[in-house]
């Protein structure tokens, strides 16, 4: 089972408005065959709108979508032939698991022998052999999810669209299905567009992330790029926790920027955006190291709260100016300890 590969799916200034509200403001994106792309953002960012536009369930109000140069945004969903996994699975309640999975094939008038063979294969792929004659209502959430995935991929679609497929599962099952989805992607090579609001899920699954906010693309890049090198303050705040310290810019030398916090603590960091006077310094809790000697980029702080997390501790410390910092460290600390926290220059990201 391998998808019909295409070379390039191109979204050219795709726009979608609902009345006066524009849900998607001119999205440009190129998806290469075989890629796993995650659309990531909080609710209302336009990620589901983008997915529905790709599937053909929502007509565009502007822009175009082309598949290997052929325009497809004027085609109805049934002509596009993209597989889709819905958030609520949308399994047909009056059909058995087998008939659900075979639905797309029977709509295409596939000969019976071939239909059975391909359904068998899909059932085996998602490990539902024992449940294939049951009805959706008799299945658990994870099993329903597998049926939904099998139903979408049995047609070997050029593109699989997934709309928050794991959000209705409990935490343990979510991890298991996440691995399952990644495994299916790796073994079948199906080009996948995956919508989620969970940054951890997106980082774990995708080859490429598209971070959206209020209908606009903020950043497109590999998980590592987006995680370690966010292009703006919004992405920095969204991708994992960062301490956001309000600062005043005092001097800039190329990338390196010197800033002062309220209370005059000096920090040197890397500029990520065009800066004016006021800025924020974004630092991840795990980028601090507890040191004994004063030096550059070293902050004096007092430990206030310590949480034990096994190998490391999550510490809330307070700077002299009253600012609270979250720190993760292997050092054993106790409330009331006076500590020095050092952070490398390249890990201090300065945003406007």
């Amino acid at each position, binding site marked *: 089972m391998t998808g019909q590969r295409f070379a390039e799916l191109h979204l050219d200034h795709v726009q979608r408005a609902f009345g006066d509200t524009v849900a998607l403001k001119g999205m440009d994106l190129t998806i290469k065959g075989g890629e796993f792309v995650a659309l990531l953002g909080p609710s209302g960012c336009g990620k589901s709108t983008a997915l529905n536009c790709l599937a053909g369930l929502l007509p565009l109000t502007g822009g175009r979508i082309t598949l290997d140069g052929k325009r497809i945004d004027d085609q109805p969903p049934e002509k596009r032939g*993209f597989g889709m996994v819905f958030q*609520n699975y949308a399994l*047909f*309640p009056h059909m058995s698991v087998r008939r659900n999975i075979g639905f*797309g094939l029977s709509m295409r008038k596939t000969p019976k022998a071939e239909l059975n063979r391909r359904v068998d294969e899909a059932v085996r792929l998602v490990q539902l052999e024992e449940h294939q004659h049951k009805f959706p209502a008799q299945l658990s959430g994870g099993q329903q999810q597998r049926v939904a995935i099998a139903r979408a991929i049995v047609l070997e679609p050029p593109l699989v669209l997934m709309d928050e497929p794991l959000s209705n599962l409990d935490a343990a099952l979510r991890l298991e299905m996440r691995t399952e989805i990644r495994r299916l992607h790796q073994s079948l090579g199906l080009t996948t567009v995956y919508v989620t609001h969970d940054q951890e899920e997106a980082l774990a699954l995708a080859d490429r992330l598209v971070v959206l906010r209020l209908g606009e693309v903020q950043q497109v890049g590999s998980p590592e790029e987006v995680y370690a090198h966010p292009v703006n303050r919004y992405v920095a705040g969204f991708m994992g926790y960062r301490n956001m310290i309000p600062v005043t810019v005092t001097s800039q030398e190329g990338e390196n920027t010197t800033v002062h916090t309220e209370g005059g603590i000096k920090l040197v960091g890397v500029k990520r955006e065009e800066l004016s006077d006021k800025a924020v310094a974004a630092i991840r809790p795990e980028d601090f190291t507890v040191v004994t000697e004063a030096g550059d980029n070293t902050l004096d702080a007092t430990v206030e709260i310590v949480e034990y997390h096994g190998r490391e501790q999550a510490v809330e410390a307070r700077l002299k100016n009253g600012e609270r910092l979250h720190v993760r460290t292997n050092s054993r600390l106790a409330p009331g300890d006076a500590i020095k926290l050092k952070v490398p220059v390249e890990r201090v990201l300065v945003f406007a």
Partner: protein
Amino acid sequence: MTALLSPRDRESPSPRDRKSLERASLKHRLAEKGVDRVLWLLVPGAVFVVLLFVYPFLYGLQLSFQPKGGGSPFQNYITFFSDSYLAETVWITLRLGLPAALFNVLASIPIAFRMRGRFRGKRALTTLLVVPITLGTVLTAEGLLAFFGPTGWFNRIWMALGADEPAKLTHNYWGVLFSLIITGFPFAFLLTLSYLSGIDPTLEQAAATLGASKRQRFRTITMPLLAPGLAVTFCLSFVLAFSVFPSAVMVGNPAGETHVMSIAAYETALRDNDFAMGSAIAMLMALVMLIVIGVVLIWRATLYRGATGGKG
């Protein structure tokens, strides 16, 4: 745990305590089966049903077996089927009730289908479709007489278009059928709309992404999930139409082609003062309705009747 119990707790319960324990557990067991004090709320309803439905029904049933002129207890029923003027009422009523119910249910499907989404003017349109329910049969019948009558608007236009004589659409079968459709449609429409909006719209979207055309989606997804609801809608519409009375008199031909069962029962009981025969006709009316409903429900039992995933 036992170590934590005070010595008093460990003593075996006194006979009185034990009795109250048992009483509590009985109450608990009943509550588990859904028996609790809230059930008392059912009493007024149950009394109402017994006094106003079960008793009159049984009274009428036994009355129908006591023919006015004496003889076999089945004499009234024998008379009914041997008198062609009476026996024919079954066919006449079915001929009105079945097409009216069928038309109302079928016509409500495409309209309800269109009315599912949100759009401007939906409320106004729904109101317009539902208003006839509030008018009552008499007002509808008068409107029909004025509109479809020999000098009504319809026939004036019909004649202006070059017809030789006015179309006869009142005081016959058609007048009653129109009336049943006008008063019955809103009811069927409201029921169908609620059944239809109980079907999760993403099911159809899913079918579309799997390559099903509009027609295939309707045939394989919407219809199978809607059919049980349509069966119920049909039954209720049919019962309403089958018991037609005022419009059969006002816009029909109550002595001839719209001599329906309810008119026959009314005439026998209150004009000819033969209550026993009237009851027999009423019982037969109920029987015919039950047979039709039974057939429809047996068909419905063969369908999928589980969850449809929607908000309904």
